[in-house]
């Protein structure tokens, strides 16, 4: 039932909107994983980011995609909670560590061969401006060193639906996926590698300012 609703939502709403109103320019699609376990790491500009990343995969694999999302935001009210848990299929993360291992749910998902979607910037922040990555992704890579981590750079969705706006304005968006990296042995070099790959992907586009 849950899977059917998710399938219908993506088939009838997300894909048509992305195809007709937004328009996606995807580069490096061949780099994306065909099956889990895997981690997608992307910059975060808009609520549309998660939907767009999920739409890059075949509909039959939808239920294997698990976006990690802030529990305090997405579980705040019943409707959003139902939608986030059932349709988007998020893994809720508690911000501001209460448990012993905050990554336990993510590790468990990887052990079930699922594909995680992470936004290490933490929040959508200022649209179309990259923020520093938080290090949680490094600890996850350390805990599961064989799992490939795929950097994905996105541009344009922050213009179409930035934080704080309810009006969707049509803009083409760019999605650049790069080859996977793996745990490098220590957190600092891993984060350095990840940031470097993201910067390289971002530099593939010629983006005009948006202020």
């Amino acid at each position, binding site marked *: 039932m849950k899977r059917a609703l998710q399938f219908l939502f993506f088939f009838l709403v997300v894909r048509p909107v992305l195809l007709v109103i937004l328009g996606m320019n995807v580069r490096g699609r061949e780099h994306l994983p065909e099956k889990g376990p895997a981690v997608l790491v992307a910059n975060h500009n808009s609520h549309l980011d998660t939907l767009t990343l999920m739409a890059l995969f075949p509909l039959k694999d939808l239920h294997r995609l698990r976006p990690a999302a802030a529990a305090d935001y997405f579980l705040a009210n019943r409707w959003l909670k139902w939608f986030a848990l059932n349709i988007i299929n998020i893994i809720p993360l508690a911000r501001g560590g209460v448990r012993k291992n905050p990554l336990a749910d993510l590790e468990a998902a990887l052990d079930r061969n699922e594909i995680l979607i992470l936004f290490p910037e933490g929040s959508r922040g200022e649209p179309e401006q990259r923020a520093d990555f938080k290090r949680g992704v490094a600890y996850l890579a350390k805990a599961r060193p064989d799992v490939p981590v795929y950097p994905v750079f996105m541009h344009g969705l922050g213009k179409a639906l930035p934080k704080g706006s309810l*009006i969707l304005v049509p803009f083409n968006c760019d999605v650049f996926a790069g080859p996977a990296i793996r745990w490098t042995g220590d957190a600092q070099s891993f984060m350095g590698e990840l940031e470097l790959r993201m910067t390289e992907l971002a530099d593939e586009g010629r983006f005009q300012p948006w202020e």
Partner: protein
Amino acid sequence: MPIPDALPDTVFYAIAVIYALLIAASVIVAVMKRKKPGAATEELSRRVTSWWFMITIFSVAIVTNRVVSTVFLGFVTFLAFKEYLSLIPTRRVDRVILLFAYWAIPVQFVFAHLNSYGLFLTFIPVWMFLFLPMAMTLMGKTEGFLRAVGTLSWGLMITVFALSHTAMLLAADKDVAGPAGGAGLLLFLVALTQFNDVAQFTWGRLFGRHKIAPQVSPKKTWEGFLGGLGSTMIGAAIAGPFLTPMPFYYAGVAGAIIAVAGFLGDITISSFKRDLGVKDSGGLIPGHGGILDRVDSLIYAAPVFYHAMHFFVFSGRI
């Protein structure tokens, strides 16, 4: 509901001829691929495959009925305008204004569909031209105002206003549109504009020597331009009597107008892309680039051809 007039047979014959050319092109490219495999022929082959899709979508849209055709043309225009807005620098404060600008598309195409010449001509160059800067002013941010209003107005003209002339051709009065009606005129314009692009490219590849606009478009040559012009004039003279109210000699002149305007549209959009530092306007059509890369020549050819038809032919002056 009245039964709409059936599409004249000549439109179907013309589409059949286009498919015959497409099959010929596919065979030639397949042979080239076998003889000289490489990145260049690979690209050419992707282009031809995309042509199959584009021609099929266009043909279905044009033969279904006029409402479908106009909606289709409006949708292509929407894609072109969206591509434009996605490429240029915009201001965050103008998001709502951009949404208004998008709504100009359905309005403009309704005026075209109704063949309402006065509203069609004034809506964007007068009303949107005055409205958009006013709305931006009310938003209250003056920093970057001139750039924002300048780029938005130009974009609306170059994409929406220019391309909406295709729908205006479609709506041309039965009495003046000629043997194949508005659909015939549209087919004449679009087929010859695209044919001219391909002919220019082919002549240029085979004999191109003397660069025509090295700063803007280094691959364009005089040989390509003149070869395209000659081929398009011949094509137009042959197709004209079937698809338009013009005899072959005037149709040949119309072909020349389409070829020259198409070339100018092509390099004008190249200029725009070069300024922004992009090679293609997008990645929607494999082997071609974005929508703007495909309709660049039509952006000039459509208004020039329409107004030439309106002034000389529809009015009965010639």
